């Protein structure tokens, strides 16, 4: 019996759960989903339908406004219209061609002002559609923009740029002028603000991911790859489902106690877990490959999504090990997948705007979908945290893949401590290496924080980031010491507290430097980079050691019950140092 036998069993077990009836039912639902998305694509997303109420006197104008579903349009005579506007909550009143709205001094002004802007947009869109119907580009859309995005780091190449680009040879990322003359309706649809399902069902049909749009000033916007992000979501989709199957299967064994038999077999727990993982991983990759093939993406996408799949599967596995009930498992998994989805999709929206967006592998997928090159260093930068964190999560999960943790009602915290205790028991100089092992986790959370911080004013962002980053690092460094003291693995003495503090702090320092050297080059220049400790070497070492020793000593004297205050104390020291480092940016 070996690893592959386990895989075979696992595969058969999950497959058998799907009776013929279930399969037919899921096919029916999938067809219904397809039909519904087709209809949604035909009629657009009805999100803000009838949100604004407009009352007017001109029936011709009413026809114009009715082209936009946002408006609930009411036609009546002048007197009635005024009454409705004043008393009945209408947002906009149009008498002949004069617009009235509730300005900032009145109740409901917020909605009315926004209705005014929506009205402006609707009329622009209507005019644009009419202009298109003239089939005379030179007189209707006389100004065209050819946007060329140039990589600045690359060497200047006068040959290719000195010849002024001709209309016929527009570069890849230049929006094309439409050669065909689209019909009015089509143009209106194409200009809808929110991308409808239509956009990506259309994408499926055409191999090219670019659509022909108007390259006029009103369409001159920052490049937000909304469509590619939505498309990459389709790639990720099977991963959610399969991770759910994986966790359900593990949990079912725990609940029904079927797993006990495997545990007494001669196989080690890591062989059992990897054996169980294998079929799910293979199916995920096959499905991703199928999607890539179908949607016409590059095969490299599979390689980019491998660490993402591992991440989802590892967290699903860990969730299934630590949860006490189905409900808890559901919530843990929802929580983790929301967090992970945020981590991977949020930065991807900014793929063309800021270099930091490559912390997410999805950004690389988006780039590939937009036919842009992806370099090896970008791959390493965005996927290394995923590889490291998922292996780590598997490792800690496998530590507690044993009878006393699988088949008892231990709390989540208890199980987490168990897995750390296992680590301490199995690894030489455990506290030194525990800091290193947990580092990718801290690193990933910190990267996530950076992304979130880009949305608040820079100074506040840095302050919040410094505080949170310090807290995360201090938790990572001291959690081992907490385990040792609270589980009485070593005697609680001042000497031990000092020793552990130094080991743990030094371990974190070494890990950080190695990891940063490998992956962080591209953000090292930014302020956030210096907060994460790329700078002088001796001071960060002293900092890590001293702050952790403070936490360790405070646990020694205050007891492990006051862990929280120990951590806060250490974080304050840590944050103060980092604050000093970036003082120039904040106060200068």
């Amino acid at each position, binding site marked *: 019996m070996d690893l592959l036998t386990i895989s075979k069993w696992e595969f058969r077990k999950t497959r058998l759960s799907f009776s013929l009836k279930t399969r037919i039912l*899921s096919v029916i*639902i*999938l067809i*219904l989903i397809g039909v*519904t*998305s087709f209809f949604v694509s035909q*009629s657009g997303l009805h*999100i*803000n*339908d*009838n*949100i604004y109420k407009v009352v007017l006197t001109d029936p011709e*104008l009413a026809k114009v406004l009715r082209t936009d579903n946002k408006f*609930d349009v009411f036609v009546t005579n002048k007197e009635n219209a005024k009454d409705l506007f004043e008393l009945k909550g209408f947002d906009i009143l*149009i008498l002949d*061609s*004069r*617009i009235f*709205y509730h300005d900032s001094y009145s109740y409901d002004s917020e*909605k009315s002002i926004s209705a*005014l802007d*929506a009205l402006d947009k609707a*009329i622009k869109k209507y*005019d644009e559609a009419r*202009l298109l119907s*003239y089939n005379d580009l030179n*007189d*209707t*859309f*006389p*100004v065209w*923009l*050819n946007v*060329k*995005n*140039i*990589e*600045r780091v690359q060497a*200047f190449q*006068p040959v290719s*740029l000195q010849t*002024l680009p001709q209309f016929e040879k527009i570069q890849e990322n230049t929006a094309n002028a439409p050669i065909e003359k689209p019909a009015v309706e089509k143009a209106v649809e194409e200009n809808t603000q929110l991308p409808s*399902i239509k956009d990506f069902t259309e994408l499926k049909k055409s191999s090219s991911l670019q659509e022909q749009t108007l390259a006029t*000033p009103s369409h*001159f*916007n920052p490049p937000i790859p909304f469509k590619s992000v939505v498309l990459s979501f389709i790639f990720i989709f099977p991963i959610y489902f399969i991770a*759910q199957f994986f966790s359900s*299967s593990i949990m079912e064994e725990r*609940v029904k106690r079927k797993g006990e038999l495997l545990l007494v077999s001669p196989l080690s727990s890591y062989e059992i877990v990897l054996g169980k993982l294998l079929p799910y991983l293979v199916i995920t990759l096959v499905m991703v490959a199928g999607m890539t093939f179908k949607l016409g993406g590059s095969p490299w996408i599979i390689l980019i999504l491998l660490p993402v799949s591992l991440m989802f599967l590892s967290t699903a596995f860990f969730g299934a090990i630590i949860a006490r*009930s189905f*409900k808890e498992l559901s*919530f843990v998994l*929802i*929580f983790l997948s*929301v967090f992970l989805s945020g981590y991977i999709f*949020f930065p991807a*929206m900014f793929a063309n*705007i800021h270099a930091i967006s490559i912390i997410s592998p999805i950004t690389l997928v988006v780039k590939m979908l937009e036919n842009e090159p992806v370099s090896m260093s970008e791959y390493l930068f965005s996927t290394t945290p995923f590889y490291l964190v998922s292996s780590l999560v598997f490792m800690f999960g496998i530590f507690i893949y044993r009878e006393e943790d699988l088949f008892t009602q231990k709390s989540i915290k208890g199980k987490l401590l168990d897995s750390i205790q296992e680590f301490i028991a199995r690894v030489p100089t455990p506290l030194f290496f525990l800091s290193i092992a947990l580092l990718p986790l801290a690193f990933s959370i910190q990267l996530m924080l950076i992304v979130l911080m*880009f949305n608040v*004013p820079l100074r506040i962002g840095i302050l919040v980031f410094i505080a949170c980053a310090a807290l995360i690092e201090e938790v990572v460094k001291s959690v081992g010491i907490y385990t040792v003291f609270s589980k009485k693995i070593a005697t609680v003495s001042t000497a031990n507290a000092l020793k552990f503090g130094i080991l743990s702090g030094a371990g974190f320092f070494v890990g950080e430097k190695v990891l940063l050297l490998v992956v962080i080059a591209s953000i090292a220049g930014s302020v956030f980079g210096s907060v994460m400790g790329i700078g002088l070497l001796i001071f960060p070492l002293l900092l890590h050691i001293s702050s952790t020793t403070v936490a360790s000593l405070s646990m020694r004297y205050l007891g492990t019950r006051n862990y929280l205050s120990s951590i806060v104390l250490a974080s304050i020291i840590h944050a103060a140092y980092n604050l000093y480092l970036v003082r120039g940016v904040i106060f200068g």
Partner: protein
Amino acid sequence: MANTFVIAKKEMNSLLNERTLILAIIVQLLIASFSSLLVIGLASFFDPSALSNYDEKTANVGVVGDGELRNFIEKSQVKVYYYQDLALALSDFNNNKIDGIVVIPGESSSGTGLIQIDIYLPKSDIRGTFVTLQLKKPLEDYEAFVRDIRSQRIGFEPVRLYVDSVTKKTSTYFEFIYGILIPLLVFTPVFISGGLIIDMFTEEFERKTMELLLVSPASFGEILNGKILTAVLIVPLQAFLWLALVSFNGVAINNIAIILLLVSIITIIVVVLGAIIAVKYKKRLISQYLYSLILILMFLAGYLFADSPFNLVTRLSAGAMGNEALAYCAAYAAFSIPLYVYLKRVKIS
């Protein structure tokens, strides 16, 4: 009937003991903050005034060539540098002295050919975005200017409306908050409760505790009702919490009572549907899978038509609709009855 409450109380206690509800609320908070960060982040790219937080006030743009467009760019916020030819401009561009180049062609507004403007921007650089935002206005003004001259040739008359004093503000935030954020916040607990009822039932089946429950004085119908009651009741509570939180942040929410009523009715539909799946299939793996598929279907269907629950919540909260929504509530409530009747008929065997 009394047994229904006993079961409901038991389920509620287990929810509170496991602190799962707290985790659910954190999940919803994460969803909310992600989506609002995303939209506010994106919206700020389309609304230059929102970028005023940034220290850079003007973009440095190189202009090559001479033409009408020059006047429009000079009048705008950008700082203009003039170049004799593109090569010089590009070398300054590559040395980070300027962040964008506009090449003005010879064609003028009175001519007949297309006016093609070349714009060079730095790739994957926030400064490119900044230049884009600042150039948009003068370019649009220029387009309007040329179009005014040229569209007369084909007899085009634009829709002209007038407004006395304009308070210009983008509608993006308003439409996002009422169109996406509020429905999302209000309906996430609904979808979570649907999953919750599946866990409640499948756990009893897989741990074989359902048999024990069935020999207790509670009938299967009472067990059903008790569990459904718990899963349904927690939803309006969470929805209320979110609405209160949102209005605390200064977003006016209208018709809270009707929204809660509508949400409760939709919850009953979703939870009963979850219960049907769980009782029919009994295994968590299959039940959750089918439920997720149906959830996607319902989600898509929710965007398919006006007057869907999502759209009703949007209009109710924005105040575009009032008591007339009660008719829709009644229609959705009527929809839940056959589902419940069907659930009662499912054999547990």
